[in-house]
């Protein structure tokens, strides 16, 4: 079965550069969630989209922005990167927002800022 696809798997950027992370949800899923997991940390919710509109917002820095496109894929744009942005970024998708069956997570994008 198709899963959530994230690209790239690994990304190395320098401080003050920009990065774009992509998430392709499971086919027909219309909701996407972004999480950030720092080294040794639990995942922290960043932002979510439902039907191409932002549905919820967590601890996402102002330097970050995200959107969901007409094909439901989502992109997380990160500017003025800082060393502290180094983390594993997960995307999850679901069909609708009443999700009691658990999200399906992608394998994540590991961002390293040097």
């Amino acid at each position, binding site marked *: 079965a198709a899963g959530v696809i994230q690209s790239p798997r690994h990304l190395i950027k320098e401080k003050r550069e920009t990065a774009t992370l992509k998430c392709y949800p499971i086919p027909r899923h219309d*909701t996407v*969630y972004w*999480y950030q997991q720092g080294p040794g*940390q*639990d*995942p*922290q*919710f960043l932002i*979510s989209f439902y039907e191409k509109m932002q*549905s*919820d917002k*967590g601890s996402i820095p102002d330097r970050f922005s995200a959107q969901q496109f007409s094909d439901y894929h989502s992109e997380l744009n990160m500017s003025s990167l800082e060393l502290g942005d180094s983390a594993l970024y*997960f995307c*999850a998708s*679901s069909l609708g*927002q*009443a*999700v*009691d*069956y*658990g*999200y*399906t*997570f*992608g*394998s*994540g994008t*590991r961002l390293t800022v040097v």
Partner: protein
Amino acid sequence: AQSVTQLDSHVSVSEGTPVLLRCNYSSSYSPSLFWYVQHPNKGLQLLLKYTSAATLVKGINGFEAEFKKSETSFHLTKPSAHMSDAAEYFCVSRRSGTYKYIFGTGTRLKVLA
């Protein structure tokens, strides 16, 4: 406010012995609760979920968890640990009124040969 507390940051068991990973939640009413496993450099995989249908929930790989409202607990158990069970385990609550997860801080399970 909702929160999830994983009582042990590290648990070590011998292969073939039982596993117990403890999780307590706080919520004004019964939340949806999940256990996820994360192997090194891998994504989060759903082990099992509680959504008020049954208090004893069976998941994949022989894991199960029991929802105990009186104790506000949702501990994860497995009768016999396998080496491949070594991973980080997250207890997760779905925040009421929104659709985002609240993660516990994780328990790292080590399985000794």
